């Protein structure tokens, strides 16, 4: 979906050598809003920076298909950059609001590249895994067939395999289906993986690649249309080494630094990992220098911060903007910067003569930064007198109003770094704290069957992608052994071991209440209380004291509830409809590790829920100590963590210590005042005592 007057999307497409060399045909299917003026709007598709398609946007009344032959030599083996750019203008309106009505939608199911050459479709080595792409709905289903599952416990190995496949296929929506035997449903998958001994796999009718004496990790000649990948060996140790072979090119040792977060499957360039004070030019962040002649300009970039980011309360980042705007831009026009969808700074463009902005600092709070991927969007709303008159509607006026240059810089200062338990945002962002483990991570499953394992595979694949490495796991069904360990619990609510409730501060009432609420039985809620609150707000607006409070809240984003000395205590949470899935985190009973619980009223909802929550857009919105996903599979409600324990993730330096304290005190506002006043009292007493000892006394 490309929205607004200017939009672009870029991603990487991986091709095998055979595919790159074969003649390829591109089909693009799109439709657009009826208000888009075709004569002033264009849609472009670029491959490796050459325009392959450049067309007016004129498909308001249905899906238009455009087919072109990709010029020979343009595609290359390995990574190819694809980008879509849209420039859209409104037919009848010149207001900024009207630009929100502009969209073009790409029909994914009918947009693909294809080749008439059958040999091009042939996949062979581990590297070719990258070329697997998602289906028309954007989802990639991966079927893992592990015949050995029925005889011995190889679940941990299967989970490891799922992570390995995921790291080769870093797609936003991966769905794993694990089974011990092939089934017809697997024919719809994007990839099928066979995992076991040669004998077991051959018994299923899979032809292993030529020389199958040792470990094998390669594509098999497929009998079906689904690419078939085989990881096998003559015995367990051999297929384990085959698994290692799959992992080797993409895994990362625990504790090594990560320079980028791989996003190329849906966003280019990959997001740089910012570990401390750092400056990034817009060029590095993939923003082009651009002149813009419309009303509402928008561009964005991604970056990542580590899991132990702890500067959400005090920190300020900066954009040093190189830009210019024309004299016809009216005062009141704005450049707004959004961080993860929340506004962070708004800069008025007030100079009536236009202006050249050189490295103009836009200071923005780091409140909305979160561990892992972050997106910064820069939006410029440009009003002009011509737009107010609106005479040349739909005509293309090419006089630029705004230019943004890629020499602009994004500056992040040194920030406090300390791990926080619990913090689901860190799990969602980088898989913290499980990515740092050297020991296998215990996973508690309600049952040890294929369906439950599929859920765990979905989850661990996503954790591995967030972490950028595979996390060794072990399965367990004894919560007592996990007292002093990190662990993940995946279970429907009725099967959760009792100690977990208290650790993640989930009320045991959830067992009855939540299930009942989904069973359609009407439940007593806090409706009256909520109503009262609503009424109080509506009526109370006239009150004098409230007005002052509201003014403070508006002006300083400061409310009475923030005036606290220390974090409050957590109350056990009771989920209810429409929450379908609940993710909760807490420290383990020994206090030295983190337990994360994934639960739902029943096994069905758990499967669907986990599959939905591991979808990247949902996954990256996890935060707080507890989050629920509603049955619409996109509404996430998070409960902020009050009691967090801070855990050192690196040796404490004085500067880091100072920044950590700054953040803690900026969160617990009154404590700062108390601390400083206390220090001043001591200092006053010491001064008094010192002054009566030095200098003259009478």
């Amino acid at each position, binding site marked *: 979906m490309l929205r607004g007057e200017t939009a672009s999307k870029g991603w990487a497409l991986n091709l095998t050598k055979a595919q790159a060399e074969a003649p390829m045909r591109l089909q693009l299917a799109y439709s657009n809003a009826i208000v888009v003026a075709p004569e002033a709007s264009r849609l472009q598709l670029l491959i490796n920076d050459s325009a392959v398609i450049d067309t007016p946007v004129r498909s308001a009344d249905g899906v238009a298909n455009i087919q072109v032959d990709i010029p020979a030599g343009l595609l290359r083996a390995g990574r190819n950059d694809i980008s879509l750019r849209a420039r859209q203008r409104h037919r009848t309106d010149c207001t900024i609001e009207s630009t929100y009505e502009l969209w073009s939608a790409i029909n994914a199911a009918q947009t693909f590249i294809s080749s008439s050459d059958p040999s091009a479709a042939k996949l062979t080595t581990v590297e070719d895994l990258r070329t697997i792409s998602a289906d028309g709905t954007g989802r990639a289903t991966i079927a893992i067939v592990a015949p050995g599952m029925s005889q011995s416990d190889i679940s941990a190995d299967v989970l490891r395999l799922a992570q390995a496949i995921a790291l080769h296929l870093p797609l936003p929506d991966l769905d794993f289906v694990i089974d011990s035997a092939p089934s017809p449903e697997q024919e719809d998958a994007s990839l099928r993986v066979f995992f076991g001994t040669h004998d077991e796999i051959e018994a299923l009718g899979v032809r292993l690649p030529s020389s199958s004496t040792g470990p094998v990790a390669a594509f098999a000649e497929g009998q079906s249309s689904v690419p078939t990948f085989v990881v096998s060996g003559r015995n367990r140790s051999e297929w384990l080494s085959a698994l290692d072979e799959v992992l080797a090119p993409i895994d990362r040792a625990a504790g090594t630094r990560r320079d980028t977060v791989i996003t190329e499957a849906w966003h280019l360039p990959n997001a740089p990992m910012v570990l401390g004070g750092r400056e990034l030019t817009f060029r590095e962040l993939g923003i082009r220098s651009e002149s813009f002649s419309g009303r509402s300009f928008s561009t964005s970039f991604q970056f990542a911060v580590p899991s132990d980011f702890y500067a959400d309360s005090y920190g300020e980042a900066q954009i040093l903007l190189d830009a210019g705007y024309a004299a016809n831009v009216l005062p009141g026009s704005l450049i707004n910067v959004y961080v993860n969808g929340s506004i962070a700074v708004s800069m008025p463009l007030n100079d009536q003569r236009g202006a050249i902005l050189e490295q103009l600092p836009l200071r923005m709070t780091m409140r909305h930064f979160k561990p892992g991927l972050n997106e910064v969007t820069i939006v410029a709303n440009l009003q002009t007198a011509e737009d107010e008159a609106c005479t040349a509607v739909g005509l293309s006026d090419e006089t630029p109003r705004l230019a943004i240059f890629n020499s602009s810089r994004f500056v992040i200062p040194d920030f406090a770094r300390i791990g926080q338990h619990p913090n689901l945002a860190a799990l969602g962002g980088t898989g913290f704290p499980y990515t740092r483990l050297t020991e296998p991570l215990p996973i508690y499953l309600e049952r040890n069957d294929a369906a439950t394992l599929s859920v765990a595979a979905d989850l661990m694949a996503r954790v591995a992608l967030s972490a950028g490495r595979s996390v060794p796991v072990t399965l367990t069904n004894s919560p007592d052994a996990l007292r002093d360990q990190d662990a993940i619990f995946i279970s429907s609510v009725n099967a959760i071991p009792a100690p977990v409730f208290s650790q993640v501060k989930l009320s045991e009432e959830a067992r009855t209440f939540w299930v009942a609420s989904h069973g359609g039985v009407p439940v007593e809620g806090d409706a009256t209380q909520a109503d009262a609150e609503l009424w109080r707000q509506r009526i109370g607006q006239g009150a004098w004291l409230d007005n002052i409070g509201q003014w403070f809240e508006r002006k300083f984003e400061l409310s009475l509830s923030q005036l606290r000395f220390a974090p409050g205590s957590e109350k056990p949470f009771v989920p209810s409809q429409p929450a379908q899935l609940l993710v909760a985190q807490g420290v383990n009973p020994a206090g030295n590790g983190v337990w994360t619980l994934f639960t739902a009223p029943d096994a069905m909802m758990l499967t669907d829920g986990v599959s939905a929550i591991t979808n990247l857009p949902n996954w990256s919105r996890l935060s707080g100590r507890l989050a629920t996903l509603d049955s619409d599979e996109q509404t996430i409600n998070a409960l902020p963590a009050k009691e967090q324990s801070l855990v050192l993730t690196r040796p404490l330096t004085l500067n880091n210590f100072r920044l950590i304290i700054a953040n803690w005190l900026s969160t617990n506002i009154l404590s700062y005042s108390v601390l400083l006043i206390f220090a001043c*009292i001591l200092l006053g007493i010491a001064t008094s005592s010192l002054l009566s000892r030095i200098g*003259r006394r009478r």
Partner: protein
Amino acid sequence: MGKVFVGLVWAILAAGTIFIVSLPINLQTHLVLGGIVLAIMITMKLLRLGGTWRLIALALGTALVMRYVYWRTTSTIPPVSQLENFIPGLLLYLAEMYSVFMLFLSLFIVAKPLPSREARPVAQEDLPRVDVFIPSYDENSSLLADTMAAAKAMDYPADLVTVWLLDDGGTVQKRNSDDIPTAQAAQKRHVELQQLCADLGVNYLTRERNEHAKAGNLNNGLAHSDGDLIAVFDADHAPTRSFLQETVGYFKEDPKLFLVQTPHFFLNPDPVERNLRTFEKMPSENEMFYGVIQRGLDKWNASFFCGSAAVLSRAALTESNGFSGVSITEDCETAVELHSRGWNSVYVDKPLIAGLQPASFASFIGQRSRWAQGMMQILRFRFPLLKRGLTIPQRVCYMSSTLFWLFPFPRIIFLFAPLFYIFLDLQIFTASGGEFFAYTLSYMTVNLMMQNYLYGRFRWPWISELYEYIQSVHLLPAVISVMINPRKPTFKVTAKDESISTSRLSELSRPFFLIFAVLLVAAGVSIWRIYSEPWKADVTLVVGTWNLLNLILAGCALGVVSERREWTSTRRIKVNRRCEFGHGDSWLPATIEDVSVNGARVRVYAADTEKFVAQGESAIRFQLLSGDASGMLPIVVRNQIKEGDTFVLGCQYMRTAADHHRYVADLVFANPEQWSQFQAARRRNPGVVGGTIWFLQLAFYQTSRGITYLIRYLRGNDRQAAPQQNGAKS
């Protein structure tokens, strides 16, 4: 040992506080802190907590100021890439940092001022011999006679005290001047003063040439005398009877003592006090210095010589070859020199002299220019921070005293900074409206509170700003010129005895009206911009408010430069003293109700008083404080009011003989308590809020008065008259 330990603890606590202050906390946390700290300081103030509580309050205030400095330094300076913003922005920043730096220096000095000292009585047989120097340049003989008479009347054995009139107006050089009228005047003066001195029992001394101005004159006195101690009084500074009793005792106590300084108390208002009519109700400008700062300096053994009303040790002066004369403020310079040689000073916080200060705005500015230039010269030639022999606290104290005079720079910058935004649309201070509110407002409030904490009874809110502003306009060029040409300024004697015979604009008033007009236009423009550019109304509002404060100050200054007519140059002092009124053998019982150096108000308790008055010549007779004798002072009755059976007479003294000067001195100057009482009556702390409201009213009224004077002047009704000189200089 204990000292070192406490010092160490203090240093650790200070470092810890700085650590906490410099944490990069967010805006909300600072806002809450600001609110809480101000609330605590207000509470402590209302509860009148002193002692250690006072220091805690100051520590709190300092912490908030330091947080402002941290924020101001890290977040508000415009980027270097925008030079047009950066350069004025940096200047403004430096001006603010100077103010904060000076605040910290004064905090050090007045953290714990010494309490007033007890007098040190000395046994009669141990009393040292004292030479009293009264340097004069061109003051008239009547004024000198009062001062000399008061000096002679000091309570001290007559054989141990010698009073010297050091006349620089009758030097050989002057008497032989090529300018005949000058030469004649000098000769006449020479003769007249010699006679007067002879009558009063004072030694007259003059010299060949007027070299090295006042310092040279005093050194000439040193060369011709041999007392152990030297008391110095300016020609118009008449001492009380107890002056020597209160001061010489300290020299006995400390052989390394070179100075006992006492406050200067003035009988007449300075131009600000006169034109704003605050003399009777508000503490004088110099009371902050003599009431708090000198006591603070005294704690660090850094109280310095102020040119008059002090006793110095001859031994010390001999060591430094007399009074230093490199700078035009020889007093402070001499003190730096002697402090650096290991001599000590003492400050006695009790007014023991009464004198005059410049009455017209022009002379006032002339006097301040001399001080400012002299202090700059000391900074240049004796740089106290690196001067060998001074203790560290003394270095800090002298740096504070000299650097103070750089105030014209920041004051002018604060005045013009808002105009950069209002007229030129430059953003020299990058902050949002909210940040301004949280940081700048809390800083300004805490600054006012701290000033009030430190100087409350001695300096009312906004008065420092007013004095700084009215001086800055003319002092800035003076300070710049001494920086460029440090040896150029010469000692100019300040005229202190003018009286303003017509209401008129000061000859220095033009720039003030000009500045006021510019600020007024700026205020208009800022209002216009609030409406015409609503998208930046919040910043315009903040800057406009700042400009408005400047405008209020500038408006008040218009009143200062609009000189009010006033006949009497000195104020009347309330006394209650028995006397008799009459002549010949007929005397009526009466009381003296108030006195000034020119006359007295006498209440006579008799119905037939009129008859006496009608006869034209009469006198008052009263018991002298300086002995058992009584004095008879001839008077002329200028007016009379009948109140029941009593008559209230306004009398003018008719001084014809030397003794008459002694009687006047006895009436007016002898009693030290009356000066203390007069000061105490004005020393009232109106509080930050009360003081601010009062100042606003004052400023509003004075603005209108200034404009009225201007209109009258423009209509040509104004009869410009030069100030009349009566003859006192210092």
